[in-house]
């Protein structure tokens, strides 16, 4: 049980990467289905719908980021093995990114699907279509911010 702190820290990193990754995978997946449908009707739209499909992909990257910073501080990819208390702090710090990443990734995907429909009907409305999914991402960014600030704040 010497490295229990590390176990907690690693659990945190895993939660961040896991849930945010799942959220993005689901979001990008459903947006991809809509994008493929739009492209089958209008192949010229490929570039635009691809951008919209990618928008829910960022949560997974934020999750990776949080996981990586954590790993680099808890003695797995650098840093020192934390105490149990510190390990729990890392675990807590990772939670916002993991959970908000899951929810926002999926729902951003749904907003992307709607935006892809919008673009396939009105090609010139791309600028507006891009904003709707980006609204959802705000919350992933806020969670990312809290997670980062928390991790950097753990002494």
């Amino acid at each position, binding site marked *: 049980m010497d490295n229990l702190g590390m176990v907690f820290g690693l659990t945190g990193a895993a939660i961040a990467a896991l849930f945010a990754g799942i959220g993005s995978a689901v979001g990008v997946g459903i947006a991809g289905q809509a994008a493929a449908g739009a492209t089958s009707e209008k192949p010229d739209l490929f570039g635009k719908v691809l951008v919209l499909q990618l928008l829910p*992909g960022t949560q997974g990257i934020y999750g*990776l980021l949080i996981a*990586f910073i954590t790993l680099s501080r808890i003695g797995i990819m650098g840093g020192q093995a934390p105490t149990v208390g510190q390990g729990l702090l890392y675990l807590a710090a990772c939670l916002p990114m993991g959970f908000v990443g899951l929810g926002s990734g999926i729902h951003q995907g749904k907003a992307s699907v709607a935006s892809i429909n919008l673009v396939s009907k009105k090609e010139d409305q791309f600028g507006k279509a891009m904003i709707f999914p980006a609204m959802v991402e705000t919350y992933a960014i806020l969670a990312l*911010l809290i997670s980062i600030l928390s991790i950097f704040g753990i002494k």
Partner: protein
Amino acid sequence: MAILPMKRILICGMKKDRKRVLEFLQRQGVVEIDTSAEKDEVFGQTDMTASSAGFSRNADMCDQALKILDGLVPAKDGLFTDYQVIDRAEYEKRIGLREESTAKAKQIVELNKRIAENEGEIPRLEIQIEVLEPWKNLDIPLDCEGTRHSAAIAGTLGGEVSLSDIYRQIAELKPELDAFDVEIISSSPEQTCLLCLVHKDQKAELEDALWRMNFSKAPLSSLNPAEEIASLKKQIADDQKQIEEDRETIIGLASERDNIRFVRDDYAMRAEKYEAIGRLAQSKRTFVLSGYLAKQDVKKIEEGLADMDVMVEISDPAPGEDVPIKLKNNKFTSPMESVVANYSMPNRSEIDPSAVMAVFYYVFFGMMLSDAAYGLIITIACAVCLKKYKNLAPGMKKFLTMFLYCGISTTIWGFLFGGFFGDAVNVIASTFFNRPDIKLPALWFEPVAEPMRLLVFAFVFGIIHLFVGLAIQMIQMIRNGDVKGAIFDVVFWYMLVGGLIVAVMTVPMLMQDMFQLSFILPLGVRKVALIIALLGAVGIVLTAGRDSKNWGKRILKGLYGVYGVSGYLSDILSYSRLLALGLATGVIATVFNAMAGMVAKGKGVVGVILFIIIFVIGHAMNLAINALGAYVHTNRLQYVEFFGKFYEGGGRTLDPLTENTKYYRVKEAK
């Protein structure tokens, strides 16, 4: 910089001159023709849809021909299609080739159609061969009726059946039959092909027996099956040869591509012109054209029309009119026009926000990407494209120019924060040269080390951005004569929000512990700031509901108005994305560098190669994802937070009659 003032133009002239006038206007490309031409007994509209549609059809046909050509012989256009600029004389010269080039385009389309037909026929012929294949040993045609006294019946039985079985079954079904002969032509597990010869008198009986055995007739062919197969095969070969030949012919026509592009543009232009003629009010011998143009273009148009026999009248549009909007900006701010247009064009009583936006846009984009190497890549890529393609479509040019400035800003922020491919300098130095002490120093500070400090600056930028938005609102209101509104809706908010922010800056706990800032305003300031904020709040309570006459209602609405301060809080917090996305770029870059460094450590040359592979793939991905993120979120900050403070939009873009071409642009001789 501004929304251009618009003028209404009225042109009257003789009908015979109308084409010349329209051609001139089309070449200038600055006049929008009004669709609502007045109609009465004298003036009506001529239906030009037939000729306009004819030209559009030809343009479409040329497009189709070009697409077919591009499929077979890819055009060497590179990344973007640049306009070719030709002068008027060259244009007149090439216009002579119109008939010929149109015929060529038509030929390409027809050849392509024939190729498609032939390609469709081949599988059909192949199926016919497949059906005949089991019969190829039969040496008489399948539709042979027989001789004078005998009849021939050709057909198949399901499954593999032996000759003796067939005789036995026929004998069981029709024992009286005796004058017949059955020959098996071919057999396979699926079917057995037979030829039965029978005396004419017994034909019906035998057929009856065969039907009961699930016999089905052979396909008909007037030749011997073997000959028929040979002829079908020849047909396939002919079709294939024809396809090849047609392809060769099309490929041979690739040299016509430029000419076809030229006539395509010409047809598109004509279609537009005729469509415009259809919108004019015309009497028997005269026509009236009405429309809008920017004031700055009036002189040019008037001078151009001076030597034509027409009357030109310029007037100011009436106040309630639906006047189109045209923006004018300098090189630095004009890329913002597309960002504004993506949201909505400003309406006539608003200020063009492009210029103010430009500075914030570039700064925010740079902060969110904040890596000097990425910035340099974007800057160089855009600069090269802009230099190589001199005559890009205006939208594309603006887009590239915007990213050019965004790239420059990213480079500057990258150096300020010490990011160059993340911490690549340090990783390379420590992995390959064993010098972990070498690193690119940040000119300002490293966000990863002091995230709270950057967060404060993100909020400061946000507050400036929002306050500038409010200031524009104030200018707009004053310009429209609503000075009271400017005080009520803007100055009170400045007092409330500004006062609260200053008050926050006097709280030591927030300033020192949270934001790690060294300066704190003295307590005395807090009192003044709070009083100002309170005055602002009272002002808002009293005035935010000023539309209501009833004071009770008015105060309630006012209280709800003050609640808007929570909106300001969330607006300001929204700018934390400046920090978050900037950190994301830096940290992801660090992740890839660390991965590359770990793999490469101590492996010599192989290590260097692995390092380069991971490095290139990782950073390409990071750049793509984060540039997209920075672009989307910069837009968001402009559209939601900034525009939310003052912008309404809803204007209509000026849609002038112009040479709406794709490949060529005609330069006017001066």
